[in-house]
């Protein structure tokens, strides 16, 4: 029961009195918002180089769209996890809203959102920068494309790790039964 272990006027007391639904909502927002930030960042980094390089070497355009697709996948991961997380929200009666069990559920959704959001942010950046170099190298020497694509595949696996851990975390979001 909150309050028994924590001094009523400390920061700890203030933190446990924040509604778990606040944390959940912020987690869901971060999951989709920051993932899309990462995807957009990656797409513009690779897109601007691709457009410029394609002027002198038009053959690279169709193959190098793969880099853009990898960045886009990062945004889709964010959307999927956000949808999964919002299905985990349940209403609990006010008497139980600050139970340890409720707080745990709120924190789990928050953590899941942060995990997915920031993993996708860096994954989008990584794939974007590699995609830009890939486009420029492909324009000079077309044998390099497949090799650099392998690097990109490893980069996009980072986002997948985030999604997996995020979904495992969200399984912890069990609210107290009525």
């Amino acid at each position, binding site marked *: 029961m909150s309050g028994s272990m924590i001094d009523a006027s400390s920061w700890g007391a203030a933190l446990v009195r924040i509604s778990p639904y606040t944390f959940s909502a912020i987690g869901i927002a971060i999951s989709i918002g920051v993932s899309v930030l990462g995807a957009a960042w990656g797409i513009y*980094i690779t897109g*601007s180089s691709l457009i410029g390089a394609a002027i002198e070497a038009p053959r690279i355009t169709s193959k190098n769209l793969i880099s853009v697709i990898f960045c886009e996948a990062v945004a889709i991961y964010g959307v999927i996890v956000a949808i999964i997380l919002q299905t985990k929200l349940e209403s609990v009666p006010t008497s139980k809203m600050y139970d340890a069990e409720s707080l745990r559920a709120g924190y789990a959704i928050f953590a899941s959102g942060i995990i997915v959001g920031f993993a996708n942010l860096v994954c989008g950046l990584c794939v974007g920068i590699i995609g830009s170099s890939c486009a420029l190298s492909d324009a000079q020497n077309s044998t390099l494309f497949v090799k650099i694509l392998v690097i990109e595949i490893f980069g996009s696996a980072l986002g997948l790790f985030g999604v997996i851990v995020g979904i495992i975390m969200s399984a912890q979001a069990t609210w107290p039964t009525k």
Partner: protein
Amino acid sequence: MYGFEALTFNIHSGYLEAIVRGHRAGLLTTADYNNLCQCENLDDIKMHLSATKYGSYLQNEPSPLHTTTIVEKCTLKLVDDYKHMICQATEPMSTFLEYIRYGHMIDNVVLIVTGTLHERDVQELIEKCHPLGMFDSIATLAVAQNMRELYRLVLVDTPLAPYFSECLTSEDLDDMNIEIMRNTLYKAYLEDFYKFCQKLGGATAEIMSDLLAFEADRRAVNITINSIGTELTREDRKKLYSNFGLLYPYGHEELAICEDIDQVRGVMEKYPPYQAIFSKMSYGESQMLDKAFYEEEVRRLCLAFEQQFHYAVFFAYMRLREQEIRNLMWISECVAQNQKSRIHDSVVYMF
């Protein structure tokens, strides 16, 4: 912050960097140069060049071709590329690209002033000027009698104005003073460019420092060699050296007192990067020095393309194009004058 430029560079300059790398792919390779060296006359050269990026510039030229026409049209391509890039650039890249032009402006100013001294026609001189270094009031240079007038009438409105502070004397313009003026202006320009690149930071600062330091050192060596045996005093010579670069300050002290080429060689061999250049030449030979310096410059410029997300690729591309135009001029002259055995004396291969 060095290392994180990849995150934001492409916002303003990603497209232009990709374009400049595309242009770099169009530079002539050793195979192209070998083909050109096999040509019998200038029309053959035109035919071989029509398969390269210069094709559209040369196709409308009537035969008989002259070497100057070939060089002029190829320079036009360089100018078009440059203008295309600078009109799409934002700060600070537009300032960086402007800096690349100032060297040509200085050369043009000196060309017109020297030509006027030798009583040539202004229009003829203007046609010989490099197109990248043109500015509006350039024809007025012919009117000036001494440097103060030069500054007051024409140069105060140009970007070269801040470089003149060390040059302002009321002496009349003669050949010696004009060369001193050229070198003083160039010294101020290089130092200004160097400071600007340092302010930009990151990979641009690192790569440009190396390239500009090499340029400063090369000019120091050339000034030394050219002023051996002239009336230029040691203090004046030392004032013309830039205050950065591998040779600053101890190498400059030693170079200032050199009286012949072997002493210069002795000074330069203490610096490992330059020892390699000087070791290619046997004692007493100075004609190969220019070519050795050009080869070293081309090697460093090609290395600038190894990193992404910095501005030095633009500088490197412009310099490599200029070297290519020099190569084409040499090859065309050798072919036109039937001296094909001497072609390999001065062609610097890039890739």
